[in-house]
């Protein structure tokens, strides 16, 4: 078995949920993702970190099966992305909120639950919108809107959750609650891939993929990141990793 993600053997109950091999995406003749090699273990929270424009959203879209011009090998829960089988198992929250402004919160979530073939359950409470359940989405604040969009991804219990910057712009208390929720989902066996550019959030992840200019700078655990860069400040650690650009060919490439 490919033990690409360090420490994966300790926690991962099953094989990888997502596997990328030589994944390349071109847009307008430019390679926006360039030969990515990575694995996201099932039942773990993988954090996708990198500056704006590093390719985080493009990678998410490729995994969700809506990105054009993808080359290389990409396996999602044992399926080819975009197929009916893959779409049944994963759920994708786009970076900008994508829900219906002219429906109430409940109407939105009921619709997404039905087309995903599942129940709405208690997602409204999970994202802390109980009081707004019957309010029109267009009347909500930016942070509330983002949470409706998140809730729409949580309905019907997907096995793989792709969340593109789910905590951006939220107040710290709410951010903490959501990370608790993500940890609970992972404990229940859901695989999560979460992008963020707030490196402080990296400590909530089991595994980190650091992206820059469409390439993987490193894939490691939060503690390894600290150990390798000698700083407790994750932001600073990222800077040091990038400045030490020589590290680039990942040391974990001893895959057999």
């Amino acid at each position: 078995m490919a033990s690409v993600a360090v420490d994966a053997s300790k926690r991962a109950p099953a094989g990888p949920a997502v596997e990328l091999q030589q994944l390349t995406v071109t847009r307008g003749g430019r390679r926006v993702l360039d030969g990515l090699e990575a694995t996201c273990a099932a039942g773990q929270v993988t954090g996708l970190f990198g500056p704006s424009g590093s390719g985080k959203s493009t990678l998410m879209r490729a995994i969700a099966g809506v990105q054009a011009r993808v080359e290389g090998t990409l396996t999602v829960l044992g399926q080819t992305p975009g197929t009916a089988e893959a779409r049944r198992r994963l759920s994708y929250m786009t970076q900008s909120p994508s829900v219906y402004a002219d429906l109430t919160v409940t109407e939105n979530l009921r619709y997404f639950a039905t087309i995903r073939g599942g129940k709405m359950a208690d997602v409204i409470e999970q994202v802390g919108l109980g009081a707004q359940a019957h309010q029109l989405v267009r009347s909500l604040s930016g942070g509330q809107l983002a949470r409706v969009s998140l809730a729409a991804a949580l309905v019907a219990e997907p096995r793989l959750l792709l969340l593109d910057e789910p905590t951006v712009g939220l107040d710290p208390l709410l951010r903490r609650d959501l990370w608790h929720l993500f940890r609970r989902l992972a404990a229940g066996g859901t695989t999560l891939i979460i992008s963020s550019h707030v490196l402080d959030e990296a400590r909530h992840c089991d595994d980190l993929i650091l992206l820059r200019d469409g390439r993987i700078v490193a894939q490691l655990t939060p503690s390894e990141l600290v150990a390798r860069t000698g700083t407790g400040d994750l932001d600073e650690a990222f800077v040091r990793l990038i400045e030490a650009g020589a590290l680039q060919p990942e040391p974990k490439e001893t895959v057999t």
Partner: protein
Amino acid sequence: MSVARTRATARRVLLQLRHDPRTIALLLGVPCLLETLLRLVFEQHRLSFDQAGAPLLAFFPLTTVFLVTSISLLRERTTGTLERLLTTPLRRLELLTGYALAFGVLAAVQASLVTALTLGVLDLHVRGPALLVVLLAVAVALLGTGLGLFTSAFARTEFQVVQFFPLVVLPQLLLCGLLVPRQRMPAALHAISDVLPLSYAVDGMHHLTLQPGASAALWGDIAVVLAFALSALLLGAATLRRRTD
């Protein structure tokens, strides 16, 4: 095709409309206003009103439904909900069929209302059954949905989508036989009008105006309109790309 997903989509589209009462009022009120205007314009020419009244009943749903559908789908595209839907188990044909069902329901309400007003209050003389007038209008509305969904695939902005209206709909109005009977048009134009769906809808309304009961020709016209609607829907599903840049 999943019935549950298609029905949920139709329901969702109707719910969105319900939260927008002004649009509903315009969709239902404007055709009534226009038929009334037509009646007043032809006050001294009852025969002309009787000739144009029914064909216009077919033209209204084409315009309103075409615009509402194409803008709705464009909005799904620009707000990102379309991208999200394409990552779910919802199939593209289910999405488009959901739209067609929702606007079919809306068109049925619109057509019933306008037909009742036009045949009742405005006293339009139609020999055929009123129910078939409504049925034909609903068929045209489905055509409007299909054309709207199909053309919105080629529009990136609201400006573009609105400009598709004069391109797709107005030539059909000029050639459908409402202004000049199709038989009296130059041969080339007549040939073009033969492949435009609105021509068949207007032919059907002419039949309903002049003949009692439902002739085979009328059913033929309705079938052609529905076939065009279905083709546009299938083409729309085929041109809707899941993977984009």
